[in-house]
């Protein structure tokens, strides 16, 4: 029993990162109707940025976040300007199709770049406090990963607040619902797109930074995390950032449970199963609107 709970706890902690990873993707897809399948590669970039800042400059990885987020957001701006800004000129159907293809090409390009720059080895950021644990009700809680979960939650909360109350946050929500109507209210839709894309990318960078501390990064994690994010987005549905975060937790828990039940090699399969169940039973996702 204790083993089960312990594994579920670890799954929960990882799930928080899944949620953060998915939140950025969900925001971009919800607002721009663009599915960036290179999202995982952006997470990877965030991870490497954090790694470089931490090992190169000696920054504590959580402090490095303060730099990683704006830096990846700027990368997002560049990618929007160079690529996705063109994709949004099409109607929704074509947008999705083109963004899938463009994202796919981008993913492989970024992956190839990363392999050249960093080699395929896995890297991780060591910190002094990482090994520390806290006992909680008989369970061993790794402090570092708990802190990561807290950070992820905080970032989601901040973004949610911005979208709910901020002038441009509300503008982004309006654009997500009906961009033409938003345009008629004086909202510069292009700027809203840009902002949403930058925020989404920044969140991805943050997720990557947290992954590099708690787990490990390599060029291969790009596709892996894209898939996790996609599954969570489908699982949770569009329209709620908090719902997406919860979806991430659910996936983390489900993976932990399936690893215990069916063994390690089949851990990933549960994600696929969840995906198909959602598709067949409730396509709009757990929290999405029909």
């Amino acid at each position, binding site marked *: 029993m204790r083993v089960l709970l312990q594994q579920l706890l670890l799954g929960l902690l990882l799930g928080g990162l899944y949620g953060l990873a998915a939140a950025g993707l969900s925001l971009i897809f919800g607002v721009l109707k663009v599915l960036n399948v290179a999202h995982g590669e952006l997470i990877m970039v965030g991870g490497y940025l954090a790694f470089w800042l931490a090992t190169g400059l000696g920054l504590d990885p959580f402090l490095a976040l303060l730099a990683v987020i704006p830096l990846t957001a700027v990368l997002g701006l560049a990618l929007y300007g160079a690529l996705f800004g063109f994709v949004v000129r099409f109607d929704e159907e074509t947008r999705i199709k083109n963004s899938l293809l463009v994202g796919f090409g981008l993913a492989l390009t970024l992956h190839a770049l990363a392999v050249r720059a960093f080699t395929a080895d896995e890297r991780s950021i060591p910190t002094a406090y990482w090994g520390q644990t806290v006992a909680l009700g008989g369970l061993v809680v790794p402090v570092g990963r708990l802190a990561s979960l807290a950070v992820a939650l905080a970032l989601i909360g901040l973004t949610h607040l911005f979208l709910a109350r901020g002038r441009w946050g509300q*503008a982004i*929500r*309006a654009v997500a619902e009906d961009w033409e*109507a938003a*345009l*008629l*209210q*004086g909202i510069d839709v292009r700027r809203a797109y840009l902002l949403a894309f930058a925020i989404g990318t920044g969140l991805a960078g943050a997720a990557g930074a947290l992954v590099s501390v708690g787990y490990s990064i390599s060029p291969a994690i790009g596709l892996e995390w894209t898939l996790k994010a996609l599954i969570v987005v489908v699982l949770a549905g569009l329209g709620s950032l908090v719902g997406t975060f919860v979806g991430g937790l659910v996936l983390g828990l489900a993976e932990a449970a399936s690893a215990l039940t069916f063994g390690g090699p089949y851990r990933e399969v549960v994600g696929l199963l969840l995906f198909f169940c959602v598709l067949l039973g409730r396509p709009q996702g757990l929290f999405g609107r029909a």
Partner: protein
Amino acid sequence: MLEVSELSATHGELQALSGVSARVGAGEIVALVGSNGAGKTTLLRCIAGLVRPRAGRIRWDGEDVAGVLPHRLVERGLALVPEGRRLFGRMTVDENLRLGAFPPRALREREATLDRVYTTFPRLAERRRQLAGSLSGGEQQMVAIGRALMTRPRLLMLDEPSLGLAPRAVEAIFRVFTEINRSGVAIFLVEQNVRAALGLAHRAYLLEHARVVGEGSGAGLLDDPQVRQAYLGPLAVVR
């Protein structure tokens, strides 16, 4: 204030407008009526900057506004209430209205404008925390008009505001139009409900088969036997 000259535009494969000219002066209520077709909506969308016309000119305050982005036109005082209302259904009435005051000029006077809108539409004040998507058709139309008013327009354009509304609601809305106009806002109204539109308007245009086939005062056209025959008679097609 608004001047359209020789405008031609297509809607898909159809020629929706062909050499159309019209104008709206400050403080006027101008109506555009005509039988079913894409022309009327296309004209409003061209003026609002959503559609690029094939030929012709649109002038706002004497300046050519070809290619100006829609949100900039809103900043300059031109607002459109599109067909079908297009509210942000997942936001509350209050949020929808407040979002209307997005341009900086309107943002400065947001609270005052909001008070005015709630006074004009008391029903909305009651429902301000309700999700816009859950309102009745008439109430949604009120939100749509209110939202456009929040941008503090000098010219308010409306595309078929009476569509799908019960007669009582239509009356109420048209009374509001008079009130809005009295406060200094010009109105350019595209309507299927010819009787109501001509009864309200100072001037009106008739649009048939992509061309302007008639122009005159609202009252004058209402009395015109040909107009009565085509639009108000027993054989007239009314949607």
